């Protein structure tokens, strides 16, 4: 039970982070790489810039000194980001790439996973997983210095909307506000996100759809008639397992590794699962009827993908 309260706290913290990233309805801006600006490398990101949807006058007025400084630093930071994400891990779409990295960073604990054990010490095996998470986050911070840089946060929201998109998934992420308003809002966001994430074969975005939909126990990403019953705990469980299982197929199973968000939870609940990946856990943990329901859901979710 303690573990569930802690995850609730981190979900709320994550909600705050995502409100920062997506919460305000800012119009998309083009990513214009200024060739006169010094870039760290000569390699240009392979993006297709979207037309600027705002006229120059609608940008932050240069008559306001603070905003002008802010605008300049946004451009600089944008350039830095584009340099950092030159070697894509998830997508050629910069919006999707940065969002996926942010989700990956969130899953390893955001360089601050001590909260997992605020009131007790991890045992040896749990400590190993925690250390793996730390190591993962540190590596991400080293590869993407701006990711873990707290000073960037006030500006990251503006920066993110500067990124262009080249996929429907990217458009969706840019266009939709992250819902903090209630159950239906988070459900609708997840429902729209999931098929796009599956189509793009993006493990982190599938993970995000699962995570956000789990905020409310009654959130179902599938038709009610598909799997009946009022046992919401069971329904949420099979949904989570089905989506995690689907995400395992992409990006070398990063969302299913022993230090993934799903397996961290299992390890910190029961020591015997520390060090196992999702598939190994599944073989030990899922009963025949539950497996049948999970397969039904996986087929259904895959069927949501538009060609």
């Amino acid at each position, binding site marked *: 039970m303690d573990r569930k309260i802690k995850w609730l706290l981190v979900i709320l913290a994550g909600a705050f982070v995502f409100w920062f990233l997506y919460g305000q309805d800012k119009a998309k801006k083009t990513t214009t790489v200024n060739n006169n600006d010094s870039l760290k490398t000569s390699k240009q990101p392979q993006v297709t810039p979207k037309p600027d949807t705002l006229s120059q006058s609608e940008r932050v007025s240069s008559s306001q000194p603070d905003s002008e400084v802010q605008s300049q630093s946004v451009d600089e930071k944008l350039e830095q980001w584009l340099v950092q994400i030159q070697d894509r891990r998830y997508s050629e779409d910069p919006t999707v790439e940065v969002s996926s990295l942010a989700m990956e960073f969130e899953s390893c604990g955001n360089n601050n996973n001590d909260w997992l054990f605020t009131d*007790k010490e991890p045992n040896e095996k749990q400590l190993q997983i925690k250390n793996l998470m730390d190591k993962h986050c540190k590596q991400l911070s080293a590869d993407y210095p701006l990711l873990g840089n707290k000073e960037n946060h006030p500006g990251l929201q503006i920066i993110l909307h500067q990124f262009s998109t080249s996929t429907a998934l990217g458009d969706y992420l840019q266009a939709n506000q992250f819902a903090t308003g209630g159950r239906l809002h988070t459900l609708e966001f997840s429902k729209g996100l999931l098929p796009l994430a599956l189509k793009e074969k993006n493990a982190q975005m599938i993970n995000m759809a699962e995570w956000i939909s789990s905020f409310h126990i009654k959130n179902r990403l599938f038709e009610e008639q598909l799997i009946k019953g009022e046992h919401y705990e069971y329904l949420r469980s099979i949904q989570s397992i089905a989506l995690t299982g689907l995400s395992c197929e992409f990006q070398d199973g990063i969302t299913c590794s022993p230090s993934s968000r799903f397996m961290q939870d299992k390890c910190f609940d029961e020591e015997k699962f520390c060090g196992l990946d999702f598939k190994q856990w599944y073989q030990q943990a899922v009963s025949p*009827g539950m497996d049948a329901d999970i397969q039904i859901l996986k087929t259904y979710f895959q069927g949501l993908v538009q060609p």
Partner: protein
Amino acid sequence: MKKGLVMLLVVAILFWWWFYQPSATKKVKHTAPPNVVSFETTEPQVKKPEIQKKPARSKQSESSSEIATTIHISDKTIADSVLSYLDVYRMTRQFESCQNIIYRLMEDENFDPVVSFKSRTQHLQALYPDLPTPPQISAIKRHASQCEQLLNAVQLLDLPDLDTSNGKTYAPMYQLKLRLKQYLLLLKPKTQKEQAIEEVLNLIELWQVYYEQVLTVSKGEEESHKAEITVLKEQLSLLRKEQLEISRQYHENPDSVERDSLGEILKEIEKLEKQVIELKRVDPEIREQAIEAFEPVNDLLFAQLKSRDPDVFYEAQKTLELNKQIYRDFGHFPYKDHGGKKFKVPFVEYVSPGDVIKDIFGIDDNETFGLVINYATQLYHCELGADCGPEGNWTPFYCHLGYDNLVEAACQHDLPTFYRDYFLNQNQWQDVQMVLDIIRELYAN
């Protein structure tokens, strides 16, 4: 002369019969543990349990005029003025599900069960916007009325006084609960069923003594490093005061407290507790002896799971599973406290009935196993003849008594129908049936 001798013989036989006849009710074999002393210590050693049953009070019939002549217990109207052992047992069981209502009735003259329900389930409003529905409201009111009748009936009984020599004080509701249990101990079971219930309750009392003995030995003794442990405990006491103060300040004004300060104190407390435990000593031989003494009693209680009586099964299962929230974890309680980090050597050797079934079923995850085992165990209880109707042992928890999973259909159907047709889906029901087959195989064959 001969007549005199015969008379003497008859008197001798009568005398022998009167003094030396064996007890008719004691079927439990008490195995006394060894009384081992390996060192001078004030810590409790493995000791012989002393359980004495008080003689039945003959005063019962004298007090019959004080007992209500009509008491509704599980729909049965007692016309007699004398309550049977089974009647009082049923009252103790009903008291469990009425506990919260009785507490409120005793504390609040204006108690309204529906208002109380709404307040208690505020957190569920988003999940169940129609809560409580009309059938739920009717069930809430009926249940409250039954609890009130129970309270009145219990208060009319000539209950024994509580033993307060231990210095403990209890809330009035809890005092009543304990006194009712004491009252049951004073009654003599007559029927076979009553005797079976008494037997398992006595066995449970014995089991708890032996179980506590294992826990006591497992905690470890402090004498060997008394001075150091005393210093650490003093430090712990100060830290705990500081923790309470920080919690209080946070409660009043979250901004007045540094974010990580509570976490740091808790970590410091845990560190010191660990040091205390490291200094404690457990004699492995004594511990082994305590476990060896516990095992035969544990086996006897496990054997009671094979009883065809639903009440005997209920009592044995509940005790062996060491659970607190019966309606959720009746079949398997994954958070059993065997001492964890507080004991020098936690009693991890203990295996509950749910653990046995989990092993047979082959599912290793407590969370996923929990999605089937409790329903299967409740259904087995129903098969033994338990009251599983809409106002029986289990469905009220899904209708209005529980803290989540409150479903209107539970107010109107028996448990198997509710589970099969409303609550569980088809594949989950199949898993529950698989586990139920395992339970039947273990206990009913």
